[in-house]
């Protein structure tokens, strides 16, 4: 009975994964398909030791991009879910408005935010200057010091609704009796949050943060739209580098090697994260 489903799953999911792993060990360049044989670890060496791309810098950028986006998206998304949990007039309309960014394409978000952060014509600079916070416009996307922060802000705006929607659904399933009992026993709002709410929605927090970490790591759209990985590689992440190698340089072998590196990082992270979180759940 299960065979057709398993076969479909294998064909649709595992076959491409296996193929891309195999590609990472082949000399597969669209500019020269006459020799596409096995080349061992050459693709990995080329990617990691490339003198024109600082691989350690790209790894660090990826870490900052994922951690910065994930933490802020989660904290703000959780806050949003807590605020929307209690009924108030117009809640449905308000929720629709704040959940809207999740429906917009990543590339379009990148383009919109690149105009908002534009150092010459951007709204953000204009508002900050009118309010007296700035004397001169800041090159948010042209200054390597601000570029990563700017793309993270755009990504946070995009990702908050995801946590908002998922955590709101989880919060609404927490039994009211638990809060009533906590109140009877004298627990304040903060205590209720840490002793009732968070333990009850922890499985959802674990699964959503894990999923989101993977999506953010694989998500190049916003960075492409805003900075193209610059200035001077300051926003180049592994996903950006993978797309550059594959679609700009046509080197599918090296692109696949970066894909395998991303996959290895995600597997390691997921393994550690799930082990730690399942232990925490047992302790709770």
């Amino acid at each position: 009975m299960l065979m057709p489903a398993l076969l479909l799953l294998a064909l649709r999911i595992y076959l491409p994964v296996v193929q891309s792993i195999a590609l990472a060990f082949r000399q597969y360049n669209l500019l020269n398909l006459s020799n596409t044989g096995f080349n061992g670890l050459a693709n990995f060496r080329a990617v990691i030791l490339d003198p024109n791309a600082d691989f350690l810098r790209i790894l660090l950028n990826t870490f900052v991009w994922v951690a910065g986006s994930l933490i802020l998206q989660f904290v703000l998304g959780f806050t949003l879910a807590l605020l929307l949990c209690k009924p108030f007039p117009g809640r449905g309309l308000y929720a629709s408005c704040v959940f809207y960014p999740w429906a917009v394409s990543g590339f379009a978000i990148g383009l919109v935010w690149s105009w908002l952060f534009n150092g010459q014509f951007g709204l953000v600079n204009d508002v900050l200057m009118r309010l007296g916070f700035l004397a001169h416009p800041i090159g948010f996307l042209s200054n390597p010091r601000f570029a990563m922060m700017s793309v993270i802000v755009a990504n946070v705006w995009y990702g908050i609704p995801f946590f908002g929607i998922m955590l709101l659904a989880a919060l609404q399933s927490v039994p009211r009796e638990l809060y009533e009992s906590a109140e009877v026993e004298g627990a304040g709002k903060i205590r209720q949050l840490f002793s009732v709410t968070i333990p009850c929605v922890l499985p959802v927090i674990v699964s959503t943060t894990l999923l989101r970490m993977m999506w953010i790591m694989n998500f190049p759209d916003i960075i492409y739209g805003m900075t193209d990985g610059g200035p001077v590689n300051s926003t180049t992440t592994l996903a950006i580098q993978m797309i550059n190698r594959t679609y700009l340089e046509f080197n599918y072998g090296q692109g696949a090697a970066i894909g395998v590196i991303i996959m290895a990082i995600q597997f390691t992270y997921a393994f550690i994260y799930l082990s730690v979180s399942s232990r925490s759940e047992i302790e709770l």
Partner: protein
Amino acid sequence: MKRVCAVVSFVILVMGCLALAQPCAAAEAVKLNLLERYTSPERTAFIKDVVKTFEAAHPNITINVISPPFDQAEAKLNMMINAKEPLDIVEISNLTIKQFVNNGLLENLESRIASWPDAKSWLPLTFSAARFVDNTAYLMPEFYFIKALFMRTDVLKKLGVDTVPTTMQQLYDLSKKITKPAANQYGFAFRGKGNPYRTSDYMILADLPNVDPKNVYRTTDGKLVFEHSQFVKSLKAYIELFKTAVPPDGINWGFSEQVNAFASGVAPLLIQDPDTVALVDRQIGRDKYTVVPMPLGISGKTYLDYGFGGLAIPSYSTNKDAAWEFMKLFSAPKQNAELCKKYGPLPTHAVTYKEDPYFSTGVYKAWAVEMNTPDKYTFVRFPTDSPVFPGWAQVQQQSMQATLLGQITAEEAAAKWAGYWK
């Protein structure tokens, strides 16, 4: 009973004949798949209009137009043609044609072009473009992109400027002269990202006297341009232009930001391709700007390349003759001129520049001068054949940005680029 048998036999006979006739009719019907590479709403609508005209004249042929979004079109083309998916006509860019030819994926069109009467009115440039790889025609060029200098005449007049820069030095001096950051007035609409080498390299290399037309990064004596004594001096002048006539944000300006800076008047001097004409016309109107030929460098020349796209037939197509019939119609002078009016770039037939006032007068005159003054405007080629060319855009962009930000010196950048091309 006999009559019934006779009627049944007749019906079976008729049905049999019809059944046998059906595959023959189906075999004659041809369905072509056309993949558009330069998708835009106006352009797609124009292609579909030509398809309708073609289908009306060829009732047995239908054409399915595949129009992926512009940013994904190259990837889609790559995937479909390499997987040998059903495609009969494809649009190919000069930047990527080499890989398809190398992999034997494009049909040789030489004999077909030789027997096509309209090829007689092609520009000499069109023949060069068609034979871009291995001196063999693998595509029918549709249009050209060639750089020229856009000038906001109204803004410059207000700033007291009534001269046209004819040299790079004049362009740099004028840009610096009109720059007043306090008044949010800058000179030059800089290109900082998204293939910036296609602007900066023209401006810097114009100072070198002997660039090899076959490879813009080598001089005629075979040395790398980055090692020429003039290169670093000209690169420094370009960096100085950025520091004195461009807002700091220019380092992150791509096409949209450049055009916006020009249309808003913040930077009234812009080096761009002819497809910018239609865009600027819509934004500010043609009475507020003009286009002049590219200024010349110290060498007395400017080196320009011609970006182009064209139609090609995948070598594995089973409908090559039908595909060629459509390509002949699409590439005829009338259709080609209409396509370029809708899309903005330069047409491929000499007759269009003579007989169509849209291209023989006004802003397009600048490009006619560039194409017809070979002693000043030398057409060169980027080394697209080189295996390291596809990575060049990223490497040049990142190291040019580092140079503009002062993270590395002009000498270090030149050495890095020389190392890349060695």
